[in-house]
């Protein structure tokens, strides 16, 4: 049975300028121990999807319009009470955020924040929690952990803080870790270290990981399956290797083409023309159509749905679905 089943998730923001459809009908599953990547540009809805699962979407102005997210076959994260949600998050489901500079409480010592999940969920007493916290810090590679655990966040560098965030998320040995662009805000050298760290922890704990990123390279090195999101929808879902070598969506192909290091020297850099659509306006048909080189009239007509075209490989491109084109 899948660890998490998300069905038809819709999260909209009701703003002064209209209703922004940040997540518009997203469905996916993740099994125990699986490593899923969610890829997309800024504004594609990948972060809001994660926030919806963790109950972190600010309501108002946000609202979960519809859908279900069943965790461990028992609780629907989108419909349960805050109490029930608090039993799960921090204990069975944890999240690492993008910006380590602002995600830690500057007024609390590292130690207090680090062991907090253990205390909240009554896993053990304070003395034992401190021991585990120390161990966790050492595991994530914070040097001189015994002394530094009593410091405040502003005494740590960005990379160190991100390690603390990871230690904090994993201290209760959750079944699912959601990592929302954890390497975006840190140096490149640190990025590799963080990646290795999460890989190692995932191996040891056997937990499932959802890795949200805009960087295809990270996905290639880590995830087993990938979802490609655009304008609040999933455009393609495939095993990693298939996604890279046998992609079945023009958007994914365009993304791959945009990687600067893969382009011929001296030529003008490839960019996808145009801009992502305005999410406050209703989008008819495929959201990528205005920018797609293969777009035809029927791409602008609903319904546009994910359809499996090969085992484990689904695409939302109607032309690919009817094998009219090949990429």
């Amino acid at each position, binding site marked *: 049975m899948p660890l998490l089943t998300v069905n038809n998730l819709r999260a909209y923001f009701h703003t002064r300028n209209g209703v922004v459809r940040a997540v518009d009908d997203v469905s996916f599953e993740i099994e125990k121990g699986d490593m899923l990547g969610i890829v997309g540009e800024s504004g594609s809805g990948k972060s809001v999807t994660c926030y919806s699962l963790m*109950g972190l979407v600010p309501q108002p102005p946000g609202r979960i319009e519809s859908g279900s997210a069943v965790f461990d076959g028992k609780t629907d994260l989108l419909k349960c009470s805050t109490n029930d949600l608090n039993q799960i998050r921090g204990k069975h489901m944890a999240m690492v*955020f993008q910006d380590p500079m602002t*995600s830690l*409480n500057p007024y609390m010592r590292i130690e207090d924040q680090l062991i907090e999940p253990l205390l909240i969920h009554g896993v053990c007493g304070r003395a034992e929690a401190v021991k585990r916290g120390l161990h966790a810090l050492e595991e994530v590679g914070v040097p001189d952990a015994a002394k530094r655990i009593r410091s405040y966040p502003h005494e740590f560098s960005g990379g160190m803080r991100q390690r603390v965030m990871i230690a904090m998320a994993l201290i209760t040995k959750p079944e699912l870790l959601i990592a929302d662009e954890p390497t975006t805000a840190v140096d490149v050298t640190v990025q590799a270290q963080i990646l290795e760290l999460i890989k190692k922890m995932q191996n040891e704990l056997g937990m499932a990981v959802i890795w949200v990123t805009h960087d295809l390279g990270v996905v290639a090195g880590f995830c087993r399956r990938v979802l490609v999101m655009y304008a609040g929808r999933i455009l393609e879902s495939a095993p990693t290797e298939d996604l890279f070598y046998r992609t079945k969506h023009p958007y994914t192909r365009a993304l791959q083409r945009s990687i600067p290091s893969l382009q011929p020297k001296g030529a003008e850099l490839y960019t996808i023309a145009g801009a992502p659509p305005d999410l406050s306006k209703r989008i008819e048909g495929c959201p990528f159509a205005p920018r797609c080189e293969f777009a035809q009239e029927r791409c602008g007509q609903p319904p546009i749905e994910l359809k499996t075209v090969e085992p484990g490989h689904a695409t939302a491109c109607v032309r690919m679905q009817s094998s009219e084109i090949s990429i």
Partner: protein
Amino acid sequence: MLRFIAKRFLETIPVLFVIVTLTFFMVRLAPGGPFTTEKSIPPEIQKKLEAYYGLNKPLYHQYLDYIGNLLKGDLGPSFKYATWSVNELIWSAFPVSLELGCYALAIALILGLGAGVIASLRQNSAADHMSMSLAMIGICVPTFVMGPLLILVFGLGLGWVNASGWDSARDRILPALTLGFVYAAYIARLTRGGMLEILNQDFIRTAHAKGAPPIRIIFKHALKGGLLPVVAFLGPAIADIITGSFVVETIFQIPGLGRFFVTAAFNRDYTMVLGTVLFYAVLIIACNLAVDIVQVWLNPKLRFE
């Protein structure tokens, strides 16, 4: 931390010096003197009085004398109340003001913090709008309007308390409320603002992600940062409570130091004025120091400057 306190202590000495000097010369250079407002005194007696109080010595001599006495802790005799020294007057009047001030501060903190926290948690709800409107009223109705109005309604109208005086315990209520309500209003607004700002920060989101229940989030995560603006406000507010007490003590006929000060100012009672100003200055500086210490304790980032 100790170094911080010592450093601040040293900084206050020149400040006090400036205050003493300024007040001394301001008072002496003003037109008129302590004896000119009385019914005219025969000149020989005036000369004798001046000699007795040392007023006929050159100015700088008087100044040095005063500083000398000051270092011995002696604030001099009162010019108006012939048998009393300034020390004695302050000593008898200050406890009254202190009591009033403490009650007012207590009201301000309890009402203000409570209303502010609740308002921030229920942003844009009826409770929020109501408490903020009430706070606005508190800020806009001055103490010297609210005091008489309260007396009118509760003292003269309903007869629940005496209109003035400081004798029974019930006499404390209206003055403390009048003085404290304004500060409750400011504190409520500041708390609400501070809490809202904190509650919108990323690290509160992290706390939610850890499964922390709402009460824990308020008390363990938000309050320390959210209270910062309030603590910063308290420093100067204490000075204001002191000046506010002048008005409240006048309205309610309370024998506190504030009323003495105003009377002394009118009567050109040099030593009394000087002594009171100095006393207040020391008090305010001490309170500011205490407030700064609390601020550093609340906000660890300040410790490393």
